[in-house]
């Protein structure tokens, strides 16, 4: 056991809480699972997308002042409030802050800019945008010789009624392609 000891009982800590402010760590808490539960604390070490979102939002605050944008007309949330809590206030916020959200979402979602996937029965995704996106995906898949993936994207394009979809040359040789 070479981890940090629990602040409360001295056993090995498994929960580490850091309180950051302006890029510096203000305070540290290390607890074992039991003590954390006793104290009603849960860890704040959030990994993955949440953490990335926090980092991006924090970094932007530090570097430069983004021009103040109007609040969401529906729920009155401002962009700086969003930056503080990482949560939007209502569905309308996605329209109000579309310009700022676009690049942020791209970073969070591996370059994803448009929804691809299921939609409620009475609504539809923007087919034109989706076609553009899928064509780009297809080109990438072919370049990377990911033929199975290319075949799937191609099917999706055809399902959407796209014309002149490039053929997927390696679709039959998928197993060879993917073992590369």
């Amino acid at each position, binding site marked *: 056991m070479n981890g940090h000891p629990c602040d409360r009982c001295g*056993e*090995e800590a*498994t*929960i580490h809480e850091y309180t950051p402010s302006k890029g510096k760590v203000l305070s540290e808490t290390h607890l*074992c*699972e*039991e*003590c954390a*539960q006793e104290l009603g604390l*849960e*860890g*704040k*070490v*959030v*990994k*993955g*997308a*949440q953490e*990335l*979102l926090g980092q991006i939002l924090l970094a932007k605050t530090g570097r430069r002042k983004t021009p103040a944008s109007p609040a969401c007309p*529906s*729920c009155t*949330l401002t962009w700086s409030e969003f930056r503080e*809590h*990482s*949560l*939007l*206030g*209502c*569905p309308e916020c*996605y*329209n109000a802050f*579309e310009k700022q*959200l676009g690049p*942020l*979402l791209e970073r*969070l*979602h*591996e*370059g*994803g*800019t*448009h*929804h*691809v*996937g*299921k*939609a*409620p*029965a*009475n*609504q*539809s*995704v*923007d087919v034109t*945008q989706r076609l553009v*996106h899928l064509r780009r995906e297809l080109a990438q898949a072919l370049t990377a010789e990911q033929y199975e*993936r290319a075949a*799937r994207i191609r099917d*999706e394009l055809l399902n959407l009624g796209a014309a002149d979809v490039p053929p997927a040359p390696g679709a039959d040789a998928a197993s060879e392609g993917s073992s590369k």
Partner: protein
Amino acid sequence: MIGLDYSSTGEWLRGTGPDSDVVISTRVRLARNVAGFNFTNRAEVADRRQIVGLAREHAASLGGRDDLLWIDVASLDSLESTLLVERHLISKQLARGDQPRAAVVSRDESVSIMVNEEDHFRIQVIRSGRQAADAWRQVSAFDDELGGRLPFAFHKRFGYLTACPTNVGTGMRLSVMLHLPALMLTKEIERVRRAAQDMQLAIRGFYGEGSEALGDIFQISNQTTLGKSEEQLLQEFDEGVMPQVVEYERRARQVLLERRASLLDDRVHRALGVLRSARLLKLDEALRLLSHLRLGVLLGRIEGVEPRTIDRLLVLVQPAHLQKTLGEVLHQAERTEARATLIREQLR
């Protein structure tokens, strides 16, 4: 009272699914919000109450099922809500709120719908072992049905709208719970971390966000929800990362068996010895030892202990479950004793 059997575990923890030697469970959840309302964090109490009302009307009878339990989470005491957290039916966030909120849970605990968590609805299906496609089919059917009754917030470009932009698009989180004791023993767990990171997946400990891997149990989940269809994600999981991780762990187990049998036997028998003799056990230690025991049982180094008994204990040794079983409020020192007693009885 809620109507769940706390002395047993949900269907998903019974070790019956495919590859359950490594993959304990697979969960798919969808985040959905009702159009015309603010997201939970910015909703007035009256609006939150209205969402709970809509859930009660439309979600409590999904699929024509009569085994769905309606739970008014706001009216639970802290022991009851912690029990649900320990059984992975609701999140800590939902348990600890102070506003109108609820959950719909199926009696076999394979379905759970959280109402007024970060999003109005978090619909999830959990399956034993590696059954992502199956879990997806069911959760998607619930989504279709609920979406047919309630207008979900949806955007042509961004898809299903969620309070946090990390969920927008499909709103889908696919996560698998993995038991990786051999990779931990052989110190090769980094390979899994790298494989997961290469595929933009997050890897976390047993309790989900916010803790290290207790009991060598990890959770891998997708991060990307925009620009990738649900099927594409399922396929990447099922053909990409899952076979790889399962293979790594099985190979590490084989290596232990063939080349480091004495280390393996020492660990697993030491674990059994302590679990059968200890009078005080803290949660971290109990989970670590149960993990080694599970490895020993799966590799046939220990006989007379069922893997199911161990999987059950993973839930029952947690604080709220111990208190529920004993019917009294226990402080930490008393819990360590109660935990050791329970384990001794179960492993006799």
